[in-house]
């Protein structure tokens, strides 16, 4: 069992997941750049007006849900490392439940936007809004699948492969912090 002390240099998870995570971070930066380019250089007024229609409260709820979920997943990895698999599984389930909660809030938010006639083709701002939140939701869905795989690993007969558990955590935290940036860019910043 690898030690959790901070002094020894150790790659969390495995190199494969980091290839994915670093690449995905760069891909998301491209989405952000496209958003900023359209919003700041071209349609400044349009974006300012459209941003008013987003609900900062549901954005806040989602942020709080996701960072709580990240805490649970971090605790899950910690508990699994100490060999407390029952506790690790509980933490994982709580984290996953928060992920589902995020989806529910998101669906509610999308529904209220669509109900007031704000669709993807309304204007450039909502194009970016739906694409970015949509891609992020796709990441949440992949992440939930990943968490289920980790849950199966924790509940298995053999000792769990820690690099897999850690990789699941790393993926989930990435989805979490990418949301921080989307929240900040789309919902808060003017």
């Amino acid at each position, binding site marked *: 069992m690898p030690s959790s002390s901070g002094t020894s240099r150790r790659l969390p998870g495995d190199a494969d997941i980091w290839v994915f995570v670093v690449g995905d971070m760069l891909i998301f930066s491209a989405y952000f750049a496209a958003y900023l380019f359209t919003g*700041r*250089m071209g349609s400044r007024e349009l974006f300012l007006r459209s941003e008013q229609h987003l609900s900062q409260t549901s954005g806040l709820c989602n942020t709080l849900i996701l960072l709580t979920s990240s*805490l649970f997943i971090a605790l899950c990895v910690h508990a699994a490392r100490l060999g407390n698999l029952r506790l690790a599984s509980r933490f994982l389930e709580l984290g996953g439940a928060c992920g589902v909660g995020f989806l529910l809030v998101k669906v509610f938010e999308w529904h209220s936007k669509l109900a007031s006639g704000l669709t993807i083709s309304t204007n450039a701002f909502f194009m970016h809004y739906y694409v970015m939140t949509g891609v992020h939701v796709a990441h949440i869905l992949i992440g939930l699948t990943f968490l289920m795989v980790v849950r199966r690993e924790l509940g298995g007969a053999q000792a769990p492969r820690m690099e897999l558990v850690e990789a699941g955590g790393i993926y989930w*935290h*990435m989805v979490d912090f990418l949301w*921080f*940036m989307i929240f*900040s860019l789309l919902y808060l910043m*003017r």
Partner: protein
Amino acid sequence: MRAYADHPLTRIWLVLLLATVVSWWWGSNDTSGSHGATMVTGVALFTIALVKCRLVIRHYMEVKSAPSWLRWTCDAWLLLNFGMVSSFYWLAT
């Protein structure tokens, strides 16, 4: 579970929580009309988001104790985003 109430990971969570609420409060009360003020507020809000990202990366993803190439890569990415946002905000004031 109670043993985790005062765990370092939980403390990070509290900081994240606080930062989120502060940035939300700031963002939703930002009625400054002038473009100059918007730029400062915008970049400041984004910086808070980046700090939150860095906390998650360092502590939850355990990059804190990872080999230096990974630490540098993650920080370079944060800087890249900072540079991107601030230059767009600076260019379009």
